[in-house]
């Protein structure tokens, strides 16, 4: 059903198909499943972060702390595994609890002190990066048979590709995100909050509680992304994932979520993250273009989608006025 609500995500899907189609038409190698499965693996941490960000943006907020969170969680995990000899599963558990707790604390400050999410999460961004530095200044390898074991899990697909543990974890988290957004009372509250927080409050949505949960959820997803990133690189580095918050926001917007909140799909965010990955892959395949073209292309797409959203909003307003 085509209406103004899912027009952005249809545009996202179209861009995705066009870019992928262009790659398949232009390069022989693109037609193999290997490219697709690599896209899933290489962009897993970005997409996971962006899923959490989707909830934040759907509610009309923003979370700038996610990139630092990824680095902090990675360094924390490495410290727990290497210095205390803890089993990685426990380390991952502790890291996730810490991520959720920090997210919830930011949520409390935003909800109860009524300070803008933008500036609170900015402070969080400084804080997590700083905490990561406090634990460790250098890149350290995470060397543990369990992590290596996770890395080796592999489900071959037809062709040369296959699903890694990282890709599968991302897909599971994606499914979880879609379920939370679509099938839970909390998900409905998030959409209501982003549509109009006043009306939402009048309709009985627990505004403060929902806000805290949203940032805790974003904390969970970015912590999870930190874990995945650490497995992906088998190392931890306090300067890792600088600027990922912007890539995540870009993925959400390119995925068709309205930046003013209230409208959007978690699945769109997945497409948004994949589109960024395809652009990068296309530039790598081309070989003659430099990596900065990725930034330009992503910036251009961002502009296109924001203008598209604006156009739709104006169009809808005109139509309902007529």
């Amino acid at each position, binding site marked *: 059903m085509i209406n103004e609500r899912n027009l952005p995500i249809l545009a996202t899907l179209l861009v995705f198909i066009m870019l992928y189609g262009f790659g398949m038409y232009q390069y022989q190698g693109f037609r193999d499943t290997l490219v697709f499965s690599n896209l899933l693996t290489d962009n897993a941490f970005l997409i996971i972060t962006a899923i959490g960000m989707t909830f934040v943006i759907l509610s009309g907020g923003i979370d700038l702390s996610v990139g630092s969170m990824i680095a902090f969680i990675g360094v924390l995990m490495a410290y727990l595994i290497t210095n205390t000899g803890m089993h990685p599963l426990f380390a991952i558990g502790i890291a996730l609890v810490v991520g959720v707790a920090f997210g919830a604390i930011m949520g409390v400050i935003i909800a109860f002190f009524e300070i803008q999410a933008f500036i609170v999460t900015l402070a969080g961004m*400084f804080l997590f990066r700083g905490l990561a530095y406090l634990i460790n200044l250098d890149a350290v390898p995470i060397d543990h048979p369990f992590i290596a074991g996770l890395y080796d899990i592999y489900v071959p697909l037809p062709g040369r590709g296959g699903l890694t543990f990282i890709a599968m974890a991302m897909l599971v988290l994606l499914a979880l995100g879609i379920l939370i957004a679509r099938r839970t009372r909390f998900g409905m509250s998030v959409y209501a909050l982003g549509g109009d927080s006043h009306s939402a409050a009048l309709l009985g949505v627990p505004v403060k509680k929902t806000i805290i949960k949203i940032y805790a959820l974003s904390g969970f997803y970015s912590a999870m992304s930190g874990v995945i990133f650490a497995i992906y690189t088998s190392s931890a580095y306090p300067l890792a994932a600088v600027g990922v918050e912007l890539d995540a926001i870009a993925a959400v917007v390119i995925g068709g979520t309205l930046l003013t909140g209230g409208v959007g799909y978690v699945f769109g965010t997945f497409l948004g993250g994949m589109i960024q990955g395809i652009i990068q892959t296309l530039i790598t395949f081309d070989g003659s273009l*430099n990596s900065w073209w990725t930034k330009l292309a992503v*910036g251009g797409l961002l502009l296109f989608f924001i203008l598209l959203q604006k156009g739709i909003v104006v169009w809808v307003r005109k139509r309902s006025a007529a």
Partner: protein
Amino acid sequence: MKKHNFLHKHQKTLAPLLSLVLIILVTASITPGFLSLRIVDGHLFGSLLDILHRATPTALVALGMAVVIGTRGIDLSVGAVIAISGAVTAVLTVNTDFPVWLVILCALGTGIICGLWNGILVSVFNIQPIVATLILMVAGRGIAQMITEGQIVTFHSDVLDAIGNGYFLAFPIRVWIAIGMIALTVLVMRKTALGLFIEAVGANVRASRLVGIEARLLVLSAYVFSGFCAAMSGIILAADIRGADANNAGLWLELDAILAVVLAGASLAGGRIYLLLTIVGVLIIQTLTTAILTSGLPAQYNLVVKATIILAVLLIQSPKTRQWLSGIFLKNKNAGSAGKASTDKGSTRA
């Protein structure tokens, strides 16, 4: 009683100033020789001067940021604009035989174009400022790298060297440039109607439009001003290291600039802005950074300390906290002397 009133009235102004003095005094007690200034070859030297020297790029950016925040906006792209203008400065100096003034004009011009771009997105297309400036923030470093072709371009020019590290009348030239820019901005914002209009737009767009203020043009010009300031800062930063680094020039500077404006007591929701206090905010941040470095604490404490201070300031500034605190305060007073409660109510709420 009179003194009390004075304190109350200027509470907002005094808080950042006192914090700055406090931080300087604490640092001075930890680090011997922190306050000492000496003159070598007619140049002033010392930690305090070093703070001024290092604070100039942030101060310029914060000046533009304060005006933008006054219109209820935000400019995330300043770091990228710094990279672009630095790249333009370096590439034009190396690849063309333009005279220096033309190079500087071109660099400032790119800043103005960047500001125009942001301003048009915000005021004509009505895109939220965070998002509109995010586009240039993401793409800007790509543009800068395209200009430098991915290299760190180093250059040599006597005039630019002077801007980066030269001295005039005992003070670094860049400090003079910043002082000139600050004075000019304060003059325009406080002695002409422009400042009032900008704050009016930030406080209430619709009301200001109804009294006949051309809101769109004002918002547009705020972003152009911010772009201009960022470009100026970019030229100074490039001149300082005699090169343009598209990846790292001005990295995180937008955050320091926003922090300075917030430390000065401005609300991110627009309205009143405090230009001179913003500069005090910049000095607080720079003094903290220098203090952490000179006190022998590892440099990595820098971010944690900064983040803690921002959070503390934000929590103190929050209207909720004030309401809450004054609530407790009132209760105590009421319990103490019921008769005086009514007059106290007046003064605490003021």
